[in-house]
């Protein structure tokens, strides 16, 4: 089988061995969960409960009339201690429910459960269940999944892609899911394909995950419309634009969506969440995570309740080893550094990486020597050095000529720069200024 890939990109050190062979364990039930109201891209939610209310596990906490939104549910039963603004992994302070867990762990009589068998559901019904379950893209983007699956009348989708590439170093979440829950993934994928009305699909996996590849291959043995495609291990192979380009040769138009070229891309874990929502009536309140890095005593993969503060998960992984200098939520390339261990986890949190001071990348910018490594590696074929120069010298009006908004902020340019220039930081500022100017 040929190994697919896109042009350019980088080969960072992967550090996947730390947790590659660690099976997903259930994390401890937290004493307290913090559930931010806004855990998706879309319309804001209105709270359905108030301070002092008692909530049962899986109970819906907030929702809205709007279609482009994903409701949130509680992952534990307990009492709403307070509703206040809490700093979330993104750094923003967001109104959140703080729930003190009780011992009963009583579940709601979950209304998602239908009497119908999964295979008898209509696309509309599946989409409704997915929305009710509050499922969002678990790769990190947190875009409501049911919206993605609701294909507009005028668009024809011919490929459904499940993204199991997981090109971020350190993380093993999708890898473990594919090894341990291959049949659930396929079942979830088929439900999603049915919902979106897509006939053909494939699952993309990087060639550094041989066990995942073989397990998935045996899982699709009897599926003639789903295949496994193997990709070169390269960053950012898992970016949906790179993935589509590599597999199908199609380019997502500038400012457009995969939808525009007949493709829908979803994450592996999302498929499992869909499977659980439809078959077990379980809303999205749990997800897998990799807790790893040199600063963690026992790097491990966990299945945790969304809303658990990260300190609980770190504790479950044996606590800190040595002195932690940096805590990253998500992967090391696109994840965000945290300022405290009190932060809650959200639906998109796929990894906790703890680094020692010696491994923290420093960006003491020296002059650019125009080596063009950033140009040669940028997966979007942009000119990062030019973009960052324009932004640094505040020539924001020229940024548009260089397609600044096409930047996917994958961090490749900053990673590769021998002069340690914080290219992405400047480009990000440039993107914001460019947006401002367009308004």
């Amino acid at each position, binding site marked *: 089988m040929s190994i697919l890939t896109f042009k350019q990109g980088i080969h960072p050190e992967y550090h996947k061995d730390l947790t590659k062979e660690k099976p997903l364990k259930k994390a401890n039930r937290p004493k307290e969960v913090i559930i931010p109201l806004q855990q998706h891209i879309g319309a804001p939610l209105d709270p359905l409960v108030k301070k002092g209310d008692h909530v049962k596990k899986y109970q819906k906490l907030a929702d809205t009339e709007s279609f482009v939104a994903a409701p949130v549910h509680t992952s534990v039963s307990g009492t709403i201690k307070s509703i206040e603004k809490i700093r979330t992994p993104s750094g923003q302070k967001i109104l959140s429910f703080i729930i003190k867990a009780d011992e009963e762990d009583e579940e709601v009589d979950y209304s998602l459960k239908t009497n119908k068998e999964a295979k008898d559901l209509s696309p509309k019904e599946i989409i409704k269940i997915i929305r009710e379950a509050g499922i969002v893209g678990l790769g990190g983007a947190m875009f409501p999944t049911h919206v993605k699956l609701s294909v507009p009348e005028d668009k024809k989708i011919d490929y459904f892609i499940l993204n199991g590439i997981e090109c971020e170093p350190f993380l093993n979440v999708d890898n473990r899911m594919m090894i341990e829950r291959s049949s659930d993934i396929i079942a979830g994928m088929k439900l999603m394909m049915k919902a979106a009305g897509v006939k053909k699909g494939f699952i993309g996996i990087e060639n550094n995950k041989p066990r995942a590849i073989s397990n998935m291959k045996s899982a699709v043995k009897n599926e003639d419309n789903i295949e496994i495609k193997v990709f070169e291990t390269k960053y950012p192979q898992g970016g949906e634009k790179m993935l589509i380009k590599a597999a199908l040769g199609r380019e997502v138009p500038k400012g457009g969506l995969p939808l525009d070229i007949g493709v829908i891309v979803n994450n592996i874990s999302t498929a499992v969440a869909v499977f659980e929502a439809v078959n077990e009536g379980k809303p999205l309140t749990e997800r897998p995570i990799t807790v790893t890095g040199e600063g963690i005593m026992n790097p491990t993969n966990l299945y945790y309740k969304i809303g658990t503060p990260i300190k609980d998960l770190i504790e479950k992984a044996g606590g800190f080893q040595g002195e932690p200098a940096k805590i990253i939520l998500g992967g090391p390339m696109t994840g965000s550094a945290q300022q405290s261990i009190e932060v809650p986890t959200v639906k998109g949190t796929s990894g906790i990486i703890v680094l020692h001071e010696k491994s923290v990348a420093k960006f003491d910018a020296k002059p650019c020597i125009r080596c063009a490594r950033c140009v040669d590696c940028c997966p979007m074929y942009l000119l990062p050095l030019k973009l960052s120069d324009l932004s640094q010298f505040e020539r924001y009006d020229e940024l548009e000529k260089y397609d600044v908004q096409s930047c996917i902020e994958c961090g490749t340019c900053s990673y590769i720069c021998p002069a340690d220039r914080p290219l992405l930081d400047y480009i*990000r500022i440039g993107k*914001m200024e460019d947006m401002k100017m367009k308004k």
Partner: protein
Amino acid sequence: MDSIYIYSILSMGGIGAILALGLGLAAKKFHVEVDERIKEVEKVLPGANCGACGYAGCSSFAEAVIKGDAEINGCPVGGNEVAEKIAEILGVQEETNETVKAQLLCSGGIKETKKISEYHGIETCKAVSSINGGSKSCQYACLGYGDCEEVCPFDAIEMSENGLPIIDKEKCTGCGKCVQACPQNIIVLAPEDKLNHIRCSSHEPGKVVSKICEVGCIGCSLCVKTCPIDAIKMEDNLAVIDYDKCINCGLCSEKCPTGTIEFNGRLIEKVVITDQCVGCTRCAKACPVNAIEGELKKVHEIDQNKCVKCGLCYDVCKVEGAIEVTYKK
């Protein structure tokens, strides 16, 4: 006379006459209206069209000067004399209505709002704010990297040791560059004559504010209650002053428990109307709380219970000595 003289006179005279005629007619035929001021600036420029200014000739430069793209001393050939003349032409239209000055609506420097992590990266407010909302305990606070200082064209802003910009009122021209540059949106333009400023922009509930900042607005609403003319409103846990209404009484500042509200004037102890009053009723009309009463052409009186000591009556009174004000020490 030598033939060479005749020929040369004929040639030069002919060339001169024909070209001048052509140009004169062309100027008439191809006449295009131009902004009067551009013309005037062009008149004082040397007209050498040498391009040393970086513009395409004198008229381009004149246009750029009027648009504000070029400096008035941008013409190297003309030197200082021309610059002065351009300044004169430009000066004519520089009539400003109301002077505004930049005001910083935050007093949480490094001392008051702690940094909660160690930031590494581009040291500008813009950069810090673009990553996870900054590294200070208060997400609304001044980030302290001095983008405003950098952008100020008049050197009117200087960062203090406490990491807060200090705005020099003398130098500030109210151009608003700092307002645009501040990613936290904590600099506003306020009329120069307003003396009350609420130096906080935090929308956190009071409980949180008191934890993370010593001088933040805790949303107690005392100022709202105190303000005699309802110039202060609570907006999402934050007191906001309406500069259009504010009468500079300073009462809010006095009541504020956290010292968030600044008052740059003098507080009034007591106001009395003396016998000098001619009964013009100006003060009564001016009083925001209707504490002054009196008939036309008769001595007015102040109801000291109602009086909020704003001093507006004193300001409007035209008769010297008719209203006496004692200030607090």
